[in-house]
């Protein structure tokens, strides 16, 4: 009887551990702060390409203690990309295809950005699952309204968070990386005369 009870206890512990271990924890990586978009420096209008399929795409990366986190990078980071572009250009619109010439003509678009997002996350903690380090690579190819390639570049947003900070916000490292991404995108655009 004692052995059966012990076996039951062990199986119960394994069940709960499996339940938690098998989980991927959802987080949001939308920007943590409002971005200063006042006084754009260019009078040009630009578009960026993002589809509903991209917005609904779910990505899983590492958290702490061997666990994973999942999120929707395009949905969550669209605001960060938009903020970076809007801090430089007069008007920004979204299109679902880089061949939407009708929208480019109607909105007098000068440049079309096609962003590709890659993310990595990690945690130094073996006890807690929220990531303490988060990196976002944003690769943008840029064409003009006629379809000619102007340039392509990659900017990286990075964010860190400690346990004492992310108790009420498990995606904090990612959200800080998103805010950093807006700033890095703005700096990259301002530094490139071919995009003015």
């Amino acid at each position, binding site marked *: 009887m004692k052995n059966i009870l012990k076996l039951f206890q062990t199986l119960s512990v394994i069940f709960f551990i499996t339940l938690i271990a098998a989980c991927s924890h959802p*987080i949001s990586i939308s920007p943590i702060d409002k971005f200063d978009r006042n006084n754009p420096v260019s009078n040009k209008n630009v578009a960026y390409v993002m589809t509903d399929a991209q917005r609904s795409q779910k990505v899983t990366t590492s958290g702490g203690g061997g666990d994973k986190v999942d999120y929707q990078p395009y949905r969550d980071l669209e605001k960060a990309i938009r903020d970076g572009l809007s801090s430089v250009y007069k008007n920004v619109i979204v299109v679902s295809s880089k061949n939407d010439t009708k929208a480019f003509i109607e909105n007098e678009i000068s440049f079309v950005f096609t962003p590709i997002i890659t993310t990595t996350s990690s945690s130094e903690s073996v006890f807690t699952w929220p990531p303490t380090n988060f990196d976002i690579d944003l690769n943008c190819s840029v064409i003009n309204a006629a379809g000619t390639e102007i340039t392509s570049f990659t900017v990286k947003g990075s964010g860190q968070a400690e346990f004492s900070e992310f108790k009420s916000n498990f995606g904090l490292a990612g959200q800080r990386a998103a805010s950093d991404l807006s700033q890095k995108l703005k700096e990259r655009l301002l530094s490139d005369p071919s995009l003015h």
Partner: protein
Amino acid sequence: MLKVRLVGLVFCVAILGGCASFEAPLYSPDYQIIDALKSEPLNKLSLGEFSPMDPQAAVNKISLRAAGLKAKQGTFTLYFKDALQSDLVELDIYDEASPFKISVELLENDIDISGLSKGFGVMSINLKIKQDEVVLLNKQYSTQIEFESSFAAAVAVPKAQSEYPVLVKSLLAKIYLDREFIKAVTKI
């Protein structure tokens, strides 16, 4: 490794216990709808009264199982006001001095993750637009969202937290697509 997992389990139970409170992420709009509105000849708009401002009002309290969801702004009424204002700025039609004033009363605001596999969000408001003392629109809007949830609180609670901005986005998108709203804010 077993001990590490157990400590992790204890952490999850503790952090998702009664005293934990989670912050709603920053609102992000449906930019396709915002961009479509840019082609309309819209009046400049200001924001009037938003209610209820009492943090203890039912619509300003959301419970995610044993945890609470809070807004960085202090109340969900202010969260909604901030969201609407940022959209008006995005549309370049926000002007504090405009006689066209939008007022909002938050009527329903909840995220429900009591189910084992599905979560739900519901929000409804009464929106009033006045030009000086003339009422141009007085209408209720509501929305519901559904999302994947889980038996495990360590999954269900952060998922519900990340869905709150989606709930607000859903309601504001409905408003921006409503012809009566567009008519009320369009230049004659």
